[in-house]
């Protein structure tokens, strides 16, 4: 009876819950059913139960294909380049921004560097073409004007990963610096005063107070980044890939898209997705444990 009363008391709240509930059930929970496709050789005419059950056969085929190693390598290289070169960039930017003394100049700079975060990858790729492409690129125009031969920057497999890194840095460096700037403002000002009394130089204050003060934030952000290490931006790669760089641009998501949606091989597409999901989760859990062992707070 008490339970019934509770339901009656919250009857209007349940009305308000309907849109959200429906959304989660239809678009978040129900699609999980589709994961079962990874364990059959899916035939859309026969349906899920008519299709042949193959157990982990799809996974075995996927691991044994040449594409698997290619994708694994590309994903790891792209992620590692992001971790090594892109991750520290916003920290450096935040430290620099913090050193600006004029408030107006600081605000203006922030407005400028945050902005690319809101542009789509299509626009970012467009800007890249305007500068580097061989038909309309600014750099190639300059080379041609000075008598050289045009260079195919965007069709060079050796440069592809660096272009991704450059784009990511340009788009997100400002936005990512927000969290580090916020961490810097949390540092106790009296620490700087005390250091000044002790005769610390600007670089010493930067290193021993600011940098060590934001270390917990840096560590947390690093774990979060490690957790999403397998999430290479699909939009970005779809924009930048072309037939010349096919070997260096294929990642799990692009493969799931071309195999599953364009070729209609749904079982393979789902298999790739599940593999990626499990590896990502393992990354989050493992890194979180490691960080806790090192004495920092984990993310959960």
């Amino acid at each position: 009876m008490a339970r019934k009363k509770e339901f009656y008391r919250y009857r209007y709240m349940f009305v308000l819950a309907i849109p959200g509930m429906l959304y989660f059930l239809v678009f978040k929970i129900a699609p999980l059913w589709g994961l079962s496709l990874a364990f059959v050789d899916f035939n859309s005419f026969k349906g899920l139960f008519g299709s042949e059950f193959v157990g982990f056969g799809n996974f075995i085929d996927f691991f044994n294909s040449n594409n698997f190693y290619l994708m694994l390598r590309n994903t790891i290289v792209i992620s590692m380049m992001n971790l090594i070169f892109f991750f520290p960039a916003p920290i450096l930017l935040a430290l620099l921004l913090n050193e600006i003394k004029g408030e107006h100049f600081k605000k203006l700079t922030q407005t400028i560097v945050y902005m690319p975060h809101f542009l789509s990858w299509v626009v970012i790729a467009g800007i890249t073409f305007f500068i580097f492409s061989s038909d309309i690129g600014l750099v190639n125009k300059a080379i041609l004007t000075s008598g050289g031969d045009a260079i195919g920057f965007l069709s060079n497999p050796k440069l592809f990963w660096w272009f991704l890194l450059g784009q990511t840095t340009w788009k997100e460096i400002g936005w990512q610096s927000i969290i580090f700037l916020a961490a810097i403002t949390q540092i106790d000002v009296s620490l700087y005063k005390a250091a000044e009394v002790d005769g610390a130089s600007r670089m010493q204050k930067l290193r021993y107070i600011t940098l060590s003060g934001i270390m917990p934030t840096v560590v947390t952000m690093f774990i979060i980044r490690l957790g999403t290490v397998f999430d290479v931006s699909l939009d970005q790669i779809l924009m930048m890939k072309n037939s010349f760089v096919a070997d260096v641009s294929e990642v799990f998501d692009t493969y799931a898209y071309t195999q599953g949606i364009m070729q209609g091989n749904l079982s393979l597409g789902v298999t790739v997705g599940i593999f990626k999901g499990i590896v990502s989760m393992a990354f989050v859990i493992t890194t979180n444990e490691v960080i806790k062992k090192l004495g920092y707070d984990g993310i959960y």
Partner: protein
Amino acid sequence: MFKKRRKLKHFTIGDYVVYIIISFICILFIAPFIYAVSISLTDPDVYVPFKLYLFPDKISLATYKYILSNASFMNSFKNTVFITFVGTLLDLCVTYTFAYVLTKKNMPFHKLFMGMVVFTLMFNAGIIPNFMMVKSLHLINSRWALILPVLTNAWSLIVAKNFIESIPGEIEESARIDGCNDIQVFLRMIIPLSKASIATLTLFFAVSHWNTYFNALIYLTDTNKRTLQVYVKSLLIDASTTGVGVDVMNMPSETVRMATVILAMLPILVVYPFLQKYFVKGTMVGAVKG
């Protein structure tokens, strides 16, 4: 005032180094836009392919006029505007109703509701299962395919929920004493008092709808249904590899492409500087409490 003046007096070599580096970074961010704008404003009649321009020889709006009179551009533009407006409005409705429900900790099923949100934060069925769901709902080639599957997300719900929780409980109580039921409290109290967070989320939703590329690519395959981002992509890449498309119209493809990209980001460029503070506040809420 005193503090500021004292600081300016001590403008050291280190400060000059910082200012020079920062200025250089700012140029790296602004220069591409200035270049694209100046090429797009070049008069098509005096444009020479492969000639190095930094600033136009002759300024004209001819390219922009041409694009705005182009049926496929306008069509994709209209589709995107529809998706952005309707999508953002519905996102807000679903997010705020559900966020309000999530604040009621004593309600039956509270744990289930919360569990669902946290679950989606960690697991996603993936590209193919989501695609199959949209397909089975017969939403392929419908603009609703870009609206319904992204009605809300865990991060926005947490932002909205945290904000509603910061509203003093007495306000809700007083409304209830005046005879309001939960829905009336929600509409008359919670929504008006959540304005600041609504502003933030409106912007995030709108930007994400405006910029959506992958979903538009897989769900809207019909050329008439395509969105602005997909149109720009085809103009940028497909036209440059096949060599057909814009050149047929006696317009230099370079100025057309640059002007189209400028138009595709213009709405964001226009609103961004005014709303930057909301954006930043919004991410902080998500980062600190989420």
